[in-house]
């Protein structure tokens, strides 16, 4: 388990990226959800040992990750948000290089292992091509391949499905699910669907603060009975936003389908109750946190950020 306590990161500027995160990440898949600029990548880099925090501690099974980050690198699989490869090497050669650096072995040898890993991520057809000819999605898959190699005990993946088509995304979900069965996987994303599909537990970060840490079921349960869905015109939407907490707004066959969160006695006409989705939960949390930051006052938010047993 990863135990994060009072983690602070302030960049010169000053820019406070993390404002004292307290979080426990159990074994298995854990999602980190938040908008762009929330501090997810900063947290990922600290966990991966690439960034020194300003304050705080991170223990992994009792071992201080921040003091001796080199001790976790042998057990770490890391897929950054923004990365590249040597353009002059083929995908296979690049992966083989990383396998050798990490000390990853298999009965078939590093070259064959590289080929098989590329097969797993559907890149075998381009194994011999130079990385500089790869599309963005292909590079992402190569990144996934190097991250999952070697059975890492801790897998940190930051926005892993960016650039992947739906088919590849589902392939990746299968891989991650398999991996999460006996290790810790921290998945950082702003795509709610990723968390909904993969993560039994997740946390929401906004503006460097932990807003919530819960399970999808609990999160949805907290909103049960307060989500309504209806149609409005584009002209009505701004007014609705002023009066209600709009969680989603999509155009369906020329009509604006809107989901709102409201108490039972403030339901606008034409709106029907709807089962809450994780998207609703996320939008509520983020909007509320934003309002709290703006107003500087306490506004009721979703239930307790602290975990049982801490």
């Amino acid at each position, binding site marked *: 388990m990863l135990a994060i306590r009072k983690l602070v990161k302030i960049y010169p500027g000053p820019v406070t990226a993390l404002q004292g995160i307290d979080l426990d990440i159990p074994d298995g898949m854990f999602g980190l959800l938040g908008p762009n600029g929330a501090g997810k990548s900063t947290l990922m880099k600290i966990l991966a040992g690439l960034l020194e925090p300003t304050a705080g501690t991170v223990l992994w099974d009792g071992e201080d990750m921040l003091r001796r980050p080199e001790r976790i690198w042998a057990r770490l699989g*890391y897929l950054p948000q923004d*990365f590249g490869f040597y353009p002059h090497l083929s995908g296979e050669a690049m992966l083989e290089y990383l396998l050798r650096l990490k000390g990853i072995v298999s009965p078939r040898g590093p070259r064959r292992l590289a080929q098989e890993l590329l097969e797993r991520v559907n890149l075998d057809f381009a194994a011999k091509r130079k990385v500089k000819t790869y599309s963005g999605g292909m590079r992402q898959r190569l990144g996934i391949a190097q991250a999952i190699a070697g059975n890492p005990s801790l897998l940190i993946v930051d926005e892993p499905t960016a650039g992947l088509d739906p088919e590849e995304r589902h392939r990746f979900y299968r891989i991650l699910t398999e991996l999460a069965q006996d290790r810790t996987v921290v998945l950082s994303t702003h795509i709610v669907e990723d968390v909904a599909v993969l993560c039994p537990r997740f946390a929401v970060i906004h503006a460097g603060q932990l807003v919530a840490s819960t399970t999808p079921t609990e999160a949805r349960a907290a909103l049960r009975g307060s989500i309504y869905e209806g149609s409005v015109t584009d002209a009505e939407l701004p007014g609705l936003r002023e009066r209600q907490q709009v969680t989603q707004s999509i155009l369906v066959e020329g009509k604006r389908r809107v989901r709102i969160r409201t108490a039972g006695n403030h339901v606008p006409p034409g709106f029907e109750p709807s089962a809450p989705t994780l998207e609703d939960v996320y939008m509520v949390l983020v909007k509320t946190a934003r309002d709290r930051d703006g107003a500087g006052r306490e506004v009721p938010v979703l239930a307790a950020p602290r975990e049982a047993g801490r």
Partner: protein
Amino acid sequence: MSQALEALERGNLAAGTPRQNKVWTRFLRVAALDFSFQVRRPLVIILFLALVLTTWGLTTGNLSISTGDQSVGGKRAYITSEHALALTLCVLTLLYYAFFISVAAGTSISRDEEMEVLPLLHTTGLRAREYVWGKFAGVLGCFMVILLLQIVTTVLIYHLLPYADADKIRGPFAWLHYAKPALLFALPQVVFVTGITLWLGERTRRPILVFLFPVALLMVVAFFLWDWSPTWLDPRWNRVLFWLDPSGYRWLNETQLKVDRGADYYNTAPVAYDAQFLWSRVACTLAGLAAVAWSSRRFGATLRGAHPTSRRGRRGAVATAAVASTVEAAAESAPLAALAMRVVPVSFVRQAWTIAWFELRNLASSAGLYLFTPLILLQALETAYYTKSIWTTRLIVTPGGFTVLTMNTLTLCIVLLLLFYTVESFDRERATKLQPIYSSTPVRTGAFLLGKALANCFVAAVILFAAWLGCAVMLVAQQKVGMDLRPFLVVWGLVMAPTFLLWSSFVMMLMAATGNRYASYGLAAAALIATGWLQVRGKMNWVLNWDVWSAIRWSDLGFLEPNGLPLLLNRLLALGLAAFFLAITVRLLGRREFDATRVVHRLAPVELWRRTVPVLLWGIVPAALSIWLGLLVWHGFQSKPAKRHDRDYWKQNLATWKDVPQPSLAAVDLALSFEPRRSSFRSAGSYLLRNAEPAPFRQFALTLATHIDSVQWTLAGADYKPEKRSNLFVFTPPTPLAPGDTLRLGFAYSSRWPAGSTRDGGGIEEFIQPSGVVLTSFRPILAPMLGFQEEIGVEAKENRYEPRQYPDDWYKSVVPVAYGLTRPFTTRIRIEGPEEYTYNSVGTMVEERVEGGRRHVLWVSDFPVSIFNVVAGKWEVRRGAGTAIYYHPGHRYNIDEMGRGLDAARRYYSEWFHPFPWQELKLSEFANLANYAQGFATNITFSEGIGFLTISDPRNQMAFTVTAHEAAHQWWGNLVTPGKGPGGDLLSEGMSHFATLLLQQQVHGLQGRIEFAKRIEERYNDERRVDAERPLVKIDGSKEGDRTVTYDKGGWVFWMLHDLMGREANLAGLQAFIQNHKDNPDHPLLEDFVDEMRPFAPDPAAFDAFTRQWFFEVVVPEYHFEAVQREKQGERWVVTGTLRNGGSGRMPVQVAAARGERFEKQSAAQALEGPATQAPDYAESRTPLELGAGEAAPFRLECDFEPDRILADPDAQVLQLRRKYAVVRF
């Protein structure tokens, strides 16, 4: 800038069409943005500072035109003249600007690509040409600003900065002196380099190729185009090379500077630009602009994928699409566990090797290595091939010689390559964005560094291997010397490898400290500039000479002498520093981004101590080594304390003892014992002093080298303690030494030579080393010297004074000897040392025995001498007719030719000048620790680089020539020793050159003499100084250019006199001259020679006219043809024209129309049989003319053959300037 742009935009919008305005505006915006980026870069600031510092250094006149008279009151070249500024600008622009411009221009487009800005930029209305030209304009604008600032700073420094000798080297301010060179030399170079590197960067997108471009430019231009100008080069090809030189230096040097026109000319006349030069500058500028235009077209074509990258790429893309479409959507892969992956610890070495291997793969795909290896190789080969001895003869390439000759070139090129490759390698992870993944692997930082370093050292290994191959090819082509790997392993392996390790680690440290490749380039460039500055200013020493620049000499006779210990310490220091820099790099190279707010914690004493002490521990060994090395230099014979001792000698004794008469030496009895392996010796003996003066000697003085401490003296057999004045020993005999009386003075001391380490490597004139011994009576090391030695303690910049000015009738007095002692003396020299050495000295060996592993020899002079020497070595010997050559067994190449030369010299000089009075004439080889030859009586010494390793072909016979010259000193220098005064040395060196001309003609015929005469005439052309040249009778060796006048002009003048007087009369006069002066305490000067030769002249009036202009004035003709026409008239050809003497002097000269090669080509075997004969196809027709200064005369030649050329002075009988232009080819 933005306001200007807005105004421009408004104006343009009002004036032109909207589309045109937008084009112009976009271009300006790109240019302005890039300009503002470039001017703020540290690189630019470093460039400007380097230029300012260099300019300031140039105010002392260190980089100036070689002209003028450096003596006090002499005319000197202005540093502010247009010629001087042109020279400065074309050199500095290439050496400084090229590198910095390459970095700026070459990466301007690839930088945008790295930052992934290009897709954003080019989805706007920005056109490719606006973008590319805008980038070019931005960079060019930045460096034009720097150039302008450089000019302004130069004006301020040159004209306003106080300097003691300002009035001598600063002329009046003229803005055109600055503007024209800037526009014609600097600006085209800047445009050229900017354009080419921008194109290179855009085309390849590989920074390494961009950064290597200035290296290539340096090698091709500075090392080749500037320097390479062999005498045989056709003037038409020379003009082609002008066009190829973007700096303009070759044109400036060849047309304006090479043949000195005098300081007055350079100080006042503008540079005479010709149309060809101006067009070449336009072409250079246009080449840069064309490169940008080409880049712009190509960039535009590839921008939106319109340009097919390759057919293979297109096929690949189609195939990929086809494959992709067939990929099954399901592709349910087996579980990951089936791969059975696991992580095992990887050793440090294995990690390093993995990194190195993959770096090497990148290098293998890098075009830079393939491009620059042959270039560097060519440069190194050219250096070795064209290296010349002091006789301007090419040397035989030997493995050892090759390694040392090419060391500087290879070091510089490899250091620059390593800089680029190391920085780019270090930055690769960041540039490719692999950094986050890379840093999260368990690779140790040390393995990362080692792996990268190993791969980059492969660059050095490839180049060295290529150079070795080149040497092998040269050796095979040369067919003289076999391959020997040991010098390569020693010099390139043990000596150079630590340099590369040190430099690589230094660059890595810079990258780790700055995290910025451009800052690293700038700091590394600053380090190189600082190193170069120390070298140029003569302030380098063993501690700082990290690149061992010019510090070692190779000798086949001895191993890296005399610098073994300091070299070893220097190399250990380099390795220690490399380790220290690596430790710092590991400390600074954070895999993890440091938190800025924790910096304060890190600076806390305890934390600082904890972080720095482990690193500082690595510095202990290099610190200790540098102290040891420093002490070694401090206690050496070239150190400041040693110089201070010498200066104390000078200060204490100059006023009292300079030119004070001393007793003469009647006999020298010396017992020497040598230990070459320890560089030590013992000298014991006695001098029999005689008073040959009319007055008694109450006191006399002897000098010993200032490092010799403990000496035992005796006087008349009794112990004596003289007054010691900084190693001038003053003797006051109990009874003054009366005229005619003798007194025996004894001495004994032990010493070492060299005494301690050199300051910065290099060679040494006299030595005791395992390779052998060379000691002479010219220095107070072998034995004490009589009197005060005024050259000891004199340093060029500190206290050198100009030589005495003698009255015109000085020669009429009793002139003392120029060197050695006024009256010859007898010698009895006993030598003992290890038996494997042979010990030679002056005179005849009368005894030799070997006892107990020691050899004992006794040399006794069979005819008095005035100087003596001792030389020892492990030799073989070739004996001839009264001659012997002692040589290193591996240097047989020229022995036969040298033997022929020595035999011929002994025979013919004895016939022509005076019978050789000694029994045997010996010539001994010594190690290449110095580069000279000395003609002591019966015991000539030659450095191995002279004669023994000279490239000698049947045409020039250079080994024969140098032997003939040195042998001539037995007569001209020993039998007749010149007097101390102006013109004296010509009777030694000039006469020896003359004797060589005679001997060449005797043995090798007309061709041999002509070749030698042209060679020394060419050297005179190159090295003379118009303003400093004085008449022969005034030459005293104190001015620049005196050497070539003494040797080359002197030899020519004596030859022309011989030609004028006729052979018999001339030789009769020379014989009488020698007879008169060989035992005469009145030593001759040149006026004596003229006076004594005159009675033998068949035509005294002609003799007077000749000697007046050639001995007492400074003249030299320069012939060229005008209006030459060749036409067929019936069966005959008629050539008409005018010959003009553009120089000075009046001499008869022949004009010849000729056809075909004059002499038959000879093989080496044919050359042994006799001189080259006239080729059967050769034909000529001649007519004599006589022209004075500025005169011209028409000529008409009728030939019964079709002439292919017309030339002046076909037999090389008149010394002249620019002989190769006194030929017209049809």
